[in-house]
């Protein structure tokens, strides 16, 4: 049935002229109060508190004109008068928006925006709430099937918000995922015909089956995401430049990087504006020599008759050349921004990346003095020490790689109750005989032969050239071969780090019933030396390790050391495990000491 059919059918009814004449006569007669069932109509104006008091709103009031039998009240909200909950006499509009899955109030809802370089939480006051309400109400929502919407990717990019029991996530590809938790609302428990009944604990029972979650999937028309973003960011960031004397719109500016070139899109322009306008700039006065080692990010933009060429280098040095059309005069300035991540954020913004990818600085901490390389030689896995000049070379090499972080190691496995848990995708981190591991401190970095480097919880993409460089370096260098005992000593040193405040150790009493005691060790030098004093030998039979009788275990980032009561050690480096044994008698002697520290 169309709206017009219904309306047309009713519009065919009309009051007769005779009836109208009689009514008009009665309505022009003097008012006589009649005693009938309508006497209790209320004519005064009431002030009533709003039904929902949202956390961010100050005290507000509804102004109502009450009428009708039984005090039934009607309030038509005029949004033009809504200028924020400032005083008691002002109207408060909740902007209840009719989504296809529910009607939800938008006023004061916090929208979390994660788009390229932008990370912002925007509360929807007044104008924003109104504009969002208008947009969502009039948008064309298309419901999607499970096949149309794959939510296995653990992507956080996009816009999300939480209202009542709904969590809504809007992706940049215009797909929308809504999860609804079915809860008992304290102030307005409702019951609709859609549900069979409500159980005592407040769970809604649908068709006889208990559900804790429902979820819905939709798509919005192309351009919707951009529109929503522009509404949310209107007062915070726009698409224009306003830094170091540069002005004009970023949209359609020409850009060139080591990876790509093209014209800046509207969505990219928001991030450029966000990064460059908010950066802390200092003017450099010494010299105008450009760094020729690395290709800069170049932007060419126009503002009326001024043309700007902006060259941004990795170290933050930026050259700005302004040419005025009329006079052909050229001004050149040298600036520097201090944010060390800004260059990579700019590069990421201007590079075509997958949703889970972002260009980042080298993620490895090189504050140690050495590293261990674990690789297979002639089919046998061995450990090698990298120190001195070799370690410095390694650090310099890795720091200069182009690292693209891929947040795709974990996928969402959806459970029957609508929640999801992250599950590691083992295919993405699978190793083969060509893989090797570099351990620096407690960080384990696995270099695979597919140009991916895995360092939990992320994996990183590097260029073909970068991968070749590290591969050749590893294969062609003669590093110091480590014995089993040296390797274990090195691991103990790095997992039990003196003064490491965030390292936790679990110590087990000989009395199995007591269970493990978790403690924070501030000074463990004595215990570390005791363990290193033992002679450790590699064990090729992991089945000797008694997982049910643990003497102690220690964890630090990607390293773990677990010892059973017989002195057998399981050394964990990333996802790999290595087993070593020592003299049970010798171990028993120091085990007491391990248990007695405080």
């Amino acid at each position, binding site marked *: 049935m169309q709206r017009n059919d219904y309306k*047309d059918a009713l519009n065919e*009814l009309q009051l007769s002229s005779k009836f109208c004449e009689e009514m008009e006569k009665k309505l022009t007669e003097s*008012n006589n109060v009649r005693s009938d069932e309508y006497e209790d109509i209320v004519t005064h104006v009431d002030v009533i508190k709003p039904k929902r008091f949202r956390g961010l709103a100050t005290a507000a009031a509804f102004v109502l*004109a009450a009428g*009708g039998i039984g005090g039934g009240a009607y309030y*038509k909200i005029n949004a033009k008068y809504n200028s924020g909950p400032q005083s008691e006499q002002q109207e408060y509009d909740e902007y209840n928006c009719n989504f296809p899955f529910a009607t939800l109030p938008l006023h004061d809802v916090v929208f979390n925006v994660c788009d390229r370089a932008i990370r912002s939480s925007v509360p929807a006051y007044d104008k924003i709430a109104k504009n969002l309400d208008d947009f969502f109400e009039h948008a064309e929502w298309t419901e999607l099937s499970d096949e149309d919407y794959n939510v296995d990717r653990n992507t956080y990019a996009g816009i999300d918000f939480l209202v009542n029991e709904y969590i809504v996530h809007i992706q940049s590809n215009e797909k929308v995922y809504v999860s609804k938790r079915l809860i008992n609302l304290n102030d307005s428990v409702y019951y609709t015909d859609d549900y069979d009944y409500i159980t005592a604990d407040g769970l809604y029972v649908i068709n006889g089956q208990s559900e804790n979650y429902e979820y819905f999937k939709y798509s919005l028309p192309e351009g919707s995401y951009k529109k929503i973003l522009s509404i949310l960011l209107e007062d915070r960031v726009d698409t224009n430049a306003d830094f170091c004397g540069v002005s004009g719109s970023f949209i359609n500016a020409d850009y060139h990087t080591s990876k790509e070139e093209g014209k800046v899109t509207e969505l990219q322009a928001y991030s450029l504006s966000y990064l460059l306008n908010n950066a802390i700039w200092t003017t450099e006065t010494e010299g105008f020599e450009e760094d020729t080692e690395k290709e800069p990010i170049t932007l060419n933009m126009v503002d009326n008759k001024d043309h700007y060429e902006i060259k941004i280098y990795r170290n933050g040095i930026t050259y700005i050349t302004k040419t005025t059309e009329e006079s052909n005069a050229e001004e050149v300035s040298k600036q520097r921004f201090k944010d060390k991540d800004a260059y990579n954020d700019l590069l990421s913004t201007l590079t075509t990346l997958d949703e889970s990818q972002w260009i980042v600085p080298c993620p490895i901490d090189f504050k140690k003095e050495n590293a261990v390389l674990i690789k297979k030689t002639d089919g046998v896995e061995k450990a090698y020490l990298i120190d001195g000049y070799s370690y410095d070379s390694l650090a310099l090499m890795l720091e200069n790689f182009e690292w693209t972080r891929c947040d795709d190691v974990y996928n969402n496995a959806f459970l029957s109750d609508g929640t999801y848990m992250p599950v590691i995708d083992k295919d993405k981190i699978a190793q083969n005989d060509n893989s090797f591991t570099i351990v620096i401190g407690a960080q384990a970095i696995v270099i695979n032969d597919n140009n991916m480097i895995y360092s939990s919880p992320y994996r990183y993409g590097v260029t073909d050239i970068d991968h070749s460089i590290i591969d050749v370096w590893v294969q062609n260098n003669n590093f110091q071969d480590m014995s089993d005992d040296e390797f274990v000593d090195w691991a103990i040193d790095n997992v039990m780090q003196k003064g490491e405040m965030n390292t936790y150790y679990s110590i087990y009493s000989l009395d199995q019933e007591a269970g493990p005691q978790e403690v924070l060790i501030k000074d463990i030098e004595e215990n570390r030396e005791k363990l290193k004093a033992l002679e450790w030998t590699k064990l090729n039979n992991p089945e000797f390790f008694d997982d049910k009788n643990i003497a102690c275990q220690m964890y630090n980032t990607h390293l773990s050391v677990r010892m059973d009561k017989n002195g057998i050690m399981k050394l964990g480096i990333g996802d790999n495990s290595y087993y070593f044994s020592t003299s049970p008698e010798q171990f028993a002697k120091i085990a007491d000491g391990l248990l007695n520290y405080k």
Partner: protein
Amino acid sequence: MNNDSTALYAFRKYGNTVLRAAFAFCGSYAESEDIVQDVFLSLHTSPKSFNDDEHLKAWLLRVTINKCKNLKRSFRFSRTCSIDEIEQSEAIYEISTEGRELRSQIAKLPRKYAEVIFLYYYEGYSIKEISEITEKNENTVGSLLRRGREKLRAELEKEDESCRETIIKTL
């Protein structure tokens, strides 16, 4: 808006609107006629001021809903709007009979659905606004709207089916 002339002004402007709403809510021509009288006479008797026409109309609809609730009938299905009723009415006439079949289905709709269907389809109110007028939770309004639509569609399909059968039988 002058209080003395409000009722007259309201009748001239919204008389037919109230008629159509009353019919949609109570499903009877005769009762619709009574309700129209009651609504405007009550405004005349107890004048009140309104911010604007929209405010006035909303109030009128609210009162119409309440008066329909007061009707001492438990089920609307016991009341059918027959062609006899309309033909005998002096207050109401049909401009056209094209929508008669749909009107008969509208009349059969239970009041709780009829209210929201009318406010949505005829008046074009949003669910939020309907919620304010009917004092129902918005989710309930949405649910009633959905159910009302399904019910109307089902009734209309049944009518179509019986018409098809009649046609087939007569062929």
